[in-house]
């Protein structure tokens, strides 16, 4: 089973994290920024599960953290989308550059 070294799996999760960071830097649309955050959270989940499986196989803490992170990500996505839809109603735009009323 352990035919693939741990560092190769960590390569995938690190790359996924920085792909998400790239999306967060370049996108100015709130929904796509939310997608970037989902990718980042998923890369963290991969890390937790893999560390749990490879380094501490007699415990289950990584699995619990993954479950809690998935739950909180779902709640966060629902709240974010409610805010985005409300913002679209009042501003007719979901661009972060245009939502600058509370910035200064």
């Amino acid at each position, binding site marked *: 089973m352990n*035919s693939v070294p741990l560092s190769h799996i960590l390569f995938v999760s690190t790359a*996924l994290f920085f792909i998400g*960071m790239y999306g967060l*830097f370049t996108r100015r649309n709130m929904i796509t920024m939310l*997608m970037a955050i989902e*990718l980042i959270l*998923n890369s963290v989940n991969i890390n937790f599960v893999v560390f749990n499986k490879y380094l501490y*196989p007699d415990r289950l803490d990584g699995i*619990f953290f993954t479950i809690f992170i998935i*739950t909180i990500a779902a709640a966060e996505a629902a709240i974010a989308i409610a805010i985005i839809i409300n913002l679209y109603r009042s501003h007719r735009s979901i661009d972060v550059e245009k939502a600058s009323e509370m910035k200064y």
Partner: protein
Amino acid sequence: MNASAIIFYIISAFILGAGLLAMTTRKIFRSAIWLLFSLVGIAALYFWLQVEFIAAVQIIVYVGGIVVLIIFSIFLTEQSGKEMPKQSITRTIASVLAVLCGFGLTYLQIWKYNFQPSSKNFDWSVAKIGSQMLNTTTGGFALPFEVVSLLLLAAMVGCIVIAMKPPKPTNGKAKEELMEKIKQEGEKELGITEISEV
């Protein structure tokens, strides 16, 4: 290199390719669909790691819930076929440089660190997860479980409150007039002379 390793490299290439396309394509609906593929690939990675429970949760919550929610919100806000405006070239270059430097530094640390994988077998079962989740003694996760349940309730109520249309403003005078009207109509229809406070 055996079959298991080959499957792992195929899955990871799929995850990274779909994730990269989700973050670079300029049509927002395609971006959501690529995100869906990336999340399904991550579920496949969990299957490959033989943690089927997490894979099932991933498919149910992310693919069945969050991506559907994102697609709904795209339909409610944007024209889904429209292309997003192009970013300035300086911002793109700066982001690519920042991301590459960050990735290089992080992976260098991971590469140099000498992980010591345990030789034991990873034994988990849904029964084990469930009993530890509701265990109140040391090592149990009963308190976080309750806190998360409260958090979900608060998020649900918060979503409804935020997305609800604001109610029509009613000042005190209008309310009094309404009460008077109700009283009069009640007297007319039922022949009651006195009505208790509504």
